[in-house]
């Protein structure tokens, strides 16, 4: 069995511990997820892809535990020696203002979740998480999927046969 040559598709997630990327082979898309020390593979064949689904999401989603961070910082400043406390309040205030400003600006933009829809279900593509990445990903694989699916359909028999 020969190894197919893979070409990288737009979008990549590179975290401290996790990473994800998508690659295209002549007949399938390979989704690589994992860490720095191991990789898990999912293959989705062109002939099985029914649609590309892009789900619009807020760019920033604040989950409840994160709201404890300013509270923890507040107590951290209170626990500082009195001589450093004023500087602590100043830094905490600056950090909060910067965070609010970032959230306000980020709220103007949308992020996304990208899926390859097949007859069995929707396959989540972790490496695509921005709308511009989804657009590039779609335009990169759309022609090959269409070509693969139109090739695999047998030509209709001529009338009279």
């Amino acid at each position, binding site marked *: 069995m020969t190894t197919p040559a893979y070409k990288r598709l737009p979008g990549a997630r590179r975290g401290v511990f996790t990473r994800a990327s998508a690659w295209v082979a002549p007949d399938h898309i390979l989704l*690589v997820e994992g860490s720095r*020390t*191991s990789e898990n593979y999912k293959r989705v064949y062109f002939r099985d*892809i*029914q*649609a590309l*689904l892009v789900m*619009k999401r807020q760019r920033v989603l604040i989950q409840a535990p994160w709201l404890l961070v300013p509270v923890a910082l507040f107590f951290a400043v209170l626990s500082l020696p009195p001589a450093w406390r004023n500087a602590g309040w100043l830094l905490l205030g600056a950090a909060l203002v910067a965070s609010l400003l970032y959230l306000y600006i980020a709220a103007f933009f949308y992020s996304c979740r990208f899926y390859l829809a097949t007859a069995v279900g929707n396959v989540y593509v972790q490496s695509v998480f921005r709308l511009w990445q989804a657009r590039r990903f779609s335009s990169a694989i759309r022609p090959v999927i269409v070509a693969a699916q139109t090739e695999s*359909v047998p030509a209709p028999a001529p009338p009279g046969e």
Partner: protein
Amino acid sequence: MALTCPECGFELKPYFLQSPDFHACHVCGQETSALAFPACFRPPETISEAELRRGEDDASCFYHESKKAAQSCSQCGRFLCALCAAQIGGDVLCPDCIVSGEKKHKIERLERARTLYDSIALIVAVAPVFTVWFSILGGPAAIYLSLRYWKRPTSIVRRYAWRKWLALALGALETGGWAWLIVYLVMVRRQSQ
């Protein structure tokens, strides 16, 4: 055709397929766009009873004696009916060859996970450098991991071997450095005595 909403799992309405714009799901309200392909509008592939029925002169499937052989396995040559023949890449495989190929990592297209020993060796070589003292263990460990798993395949998608070479070089450097330091300290001590 049955595209489902990735958020709630309910079937998406037909207007999702008419334009690739964002539409709200009628159940959860999640905005989603769908770019449909011909496979979405094609009826599911079925195998008719007639295709499977074995005639008197037909060869039978290895796994189903009553069914007509349609293809043969590319690896073991067993005759297979339309139900048993699995197309993987350009090859037709029987269920047994698929199972054994997956177990023995012979068929790369069936591999679902790989451990990246070259990356582990590099991490083991690089990480202890920041703590200096741990490199006394990290160096030999990096050499061991590099040599022990030298022939193991790396990632399916990146095929560069520089990680294991670098891990080996760093491991050798760290181990050599420690050996030199120990010998030097012993000699200095002997000279001072």
